[in-house]
C-alpha cells in the first residue's frame, strides 16, 4: 500500500515532530489492541477455567456427565450438540447460499440483483433474539405439526427421524442457525463468483455449453476453493450462534441419535447457566466450555480467512 511517508518531499518543521509521533503512537497502539484482544480473551478464559482444568484435565472433553448437583462436569454433550446443529445448518445453508449467489451473478437481470442483495443484507441485520422469538412462536409449532410429522412418516426408518416429536429439537436448532448464516454464506459466495473471470464463461459458451454447463464447468469448478472457504466461514458463525439456538434447541445435555430430540450447545449452556452457577467449580466449568468454543472458532476462522485470502480476494471484510 502506498503511504505518504515515502513521497513526503519536505521534512516537517522540527517543532511539529512531537505531536506527530504522539499521533502515530496512538494509532499504532489502537491497531495493536486487535492483537492484544485475542491474547486477552484466551488468557482470561483460561484463567477463569483454572479450577475446572486442574480438576478434570482432558477428561472434561470426553465426559458426558453434566451434573451441577454433584459437581461433575463434562463437555461432550455440548460439543456434540454444537457440531450436529452447525453441520445441519451447513447442509441447509451452503447449497441454498451458493445457489442464490449463482442466481445473483449468472442469471438474474441486472435490475433485480441489487434489491436481492439488500434483502440478504437485511436478513443479516435481524438480531439473533428476534429469530429466537420467531422460532419459538412461529417456526417450532409449524415444524412440530407439519414438517417433522411428514419427515417421520416418510423417513422414519432412519434412526435420525425416530422418537417423540417435541418441536424444540436439534433439527429446529439447525434450521434456525441455517437461516442465520445464509446471509454470510450468500454474500461471500457472491464475492467469490464475481471474481471468476468473464473469459472463463465466454470460453465455455463458445464451446456450445448450455447455461447450466457453463455454471458447473466454468464457474463452480473455478471457484470451488473460495466457496469452500465461504462454507468454513459460515461454520465459524454457526458454532457461536447463541440466542436463537438457545430458544429452540431444547437445552437438554443428552446425546441422541434422533434429530427430533432436544440438544444443547456450548454457547447455549453458557447463556443459560452462567448466572445460575452456584459453585466455583460450576462457573469454572462454564468458562472451560467458553475456552473450547473460543479455541474452535478461532481455528475455524483462521482456516476460512487463509482459504479466502488464497483466492486472492484480499480478505473478507463483510460486516454481517
Amino acid at each position, binding site marked *: *500500500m*502506498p*503511504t*505518504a511517508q515515502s*513521497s513526503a*518531499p*519536505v521534512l*516537517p*518543521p522540527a517543532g511539529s515532530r512531537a*505531536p506527530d509521533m504522539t499521533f*502515530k503512537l496512538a*494509532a499504532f497502539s*489502537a*491497531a495493536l*489492541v*486487535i*492483537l492484544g*484482544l*485475542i491474547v486477552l*480473551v484466551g488468557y*482470561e*478464559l483460561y484463567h*477463569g477455567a483454572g479450577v475446572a482444568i486442574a480438576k478434570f484435565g482432558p477428561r472434561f472433553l470426553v465426559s458426558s456427565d453434566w451434573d451441577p448437583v454433584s459437581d461433575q462436569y463434562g463437555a461432550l454433550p455440548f460439543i456434540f450438540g454444537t457440531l450436529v446443529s452447525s453441520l445441519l445448518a451447513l447442509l441447509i445453508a451452503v447449497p441454498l447460499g451458493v445457489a*442464490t449467489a*449463482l442466481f445473483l451473478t449468472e*442469471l438474474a437481470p441486472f435490475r433485480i440483483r441489487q434489491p436481492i442483495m*439488500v434483502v440478504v443484507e*437485511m*436478513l443479516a*441485520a*435481524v*438480531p*439473533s*433474539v*428476534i429469530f*429466537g*422469538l420467531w422460532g419459538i*412462536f*412461529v417456526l417450532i409449532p409449524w415444524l412440530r405439526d407439519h414438517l417433522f410429522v411428514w419427515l417421520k412418516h416418510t423417513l422414519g426408518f432412519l434412526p435420525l427421524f425416530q422418537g417423540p416429536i417435541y418441536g424444540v429439537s436439534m433439527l429446529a436448532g439447525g434450521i434456525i442457525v441455517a*437461516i442465520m448464516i445464509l446471509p454470510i454464506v450468500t454474500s461471500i459466495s457472491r464475492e467469490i463468483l464475481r471474481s471468476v473471470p468473464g473469459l472463463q464463461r465466454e470460453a465455455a459458451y463458445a464451446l456450445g*455449453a448450455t447455461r*447450466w*454447463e457453463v*455454471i458447473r464447468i466454468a464457474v463452480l469448478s473455478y471457484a470451488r476453493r473460495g466457496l469452500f472457504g465461504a462454507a468454513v*466461514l459460515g461454520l465459524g458463525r454457526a458454532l*457461536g*450462534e*447463541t*440466542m436463537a439456538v438457545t*430458544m429452540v434447541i431444547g437445552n437438554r445435555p443428552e446425546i441422541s441419535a434422533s434429530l427430533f430430540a432436544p440438544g444443547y450447545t456450548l*454457547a447455549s449452556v*453458557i*447463556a443459560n447457566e452462567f*448466572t445460575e452457577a452456584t459453585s466455583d467449580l460450576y462457573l469454572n466449568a462454564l468458562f472451560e466450555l*467458553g475456552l473450547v468454543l473460543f479455541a474452535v*472458532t478461532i481455528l475455524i*476462522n483462521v482456516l476460512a*480467512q487463509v482459504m479466502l485470502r488464497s483466492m486472492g480476494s484480499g480478505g*473478507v471484510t463483510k460486516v*454481517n
Partner: protein
Amino acid sequence: MSAPVALSSPFAPTAARERWRRIKSAGMTAVLCLCAVAVMAPLFLVIYFLLKEGASSLDWRFFTQLPKPTGELGGGMANAIVGTITLLAMAAAVGVPVGVLGGIYLAEYGSEGANAWIRFAADVLNGVPSIIWGMVVYLLLVVPFKTFSAYAGGVALGLMMIPLVMRTTEEVLVLVPQSYREAALALGIARWKVIVIIVVRTALKGVVTGILIALARVAGETAPLLFTALGNNFWNRNLAEPISALPLQIFAYAISPYDDWHRQAWAGALVLMAMILGLNLLVRLLSNWRNHQ
C-alpha cells in the same frame, strides 16, 4: 460452420442428448431461482409476524412505562429502550476511537507485513462468538467491581465494534487520493494534521457509515449483555448498576410462560427491528449520497 467435435466431448451434438442438456439447464435455472426465493423468504416471514404480532401490542404505555411485576397486565419497556440507547452510546465511546485510530494506522502508517497480520487478526476477531465477549468482560469488569453494570455491558459491545470499525475505516481512507496527502504535506502541514484535517475529513461520510453499521450490528446483541448489563426492571440511575436493554427484555419475556409478556416481547422485537432497519437505512442514504458526489 460447426467444427468437428470428438464424440467423447460432453458437448457432442446428438439430438436426444441435446434435448436432455437443454432440459437439464432449464431445470437447474429454475432450481437456482427457487433457492434465491427460499433465501429471501425468512426475512419476509419474520417481518410479517413482527408486524402482525407486534403492532397490535404497541401502544403509548409501551414507550412510557416500566415493566409490571409478574402477574400484572400492562406495563412497557421504556427503560429497555433508554437502556439500549445508553449502552450503544457507551459502546461507541469505547469502539469508535480505538477502531478509527486503528484504521488510520492501517491506512496511513504501518508496513505491509505488519498490516496484513493486524487485518487478519481483525477478521478472525470478527468471528469470535458474541457470548465470549460477555464472559471476558464479566471477568474484567463485573468480578473486580462485584456488580453487574451498564459500564460492563457498554464495554462488551464496544469491544465487538473495534474490529468492524477498524476495517471499514481503513477501507474508506485508502480511497482518498494520494495527491491530497502530497499537496498538504508540500505545504508543510504536519503529518497528523494532514491525516485528521485532509484525509479523515475527506472520507468522513464513509467513516461514519462504518460506525453506523457497527452500531446496528451490536444493537441487537443479547449474549454479551447477559452477564454484563444483566437487565433491570427499573430505571437505571447509576451506570455502575445493572441496566436493561431491549434484546435482554425480549429474551426474558419470550421464554416466560405468560401470554401478556409474549405479546410485549413481540412489540419489543418490532421496536428493536425498526431501530436496526432505521440505522441501516441511514447507512444506505449516506452511502448513496457519497456515491453521487
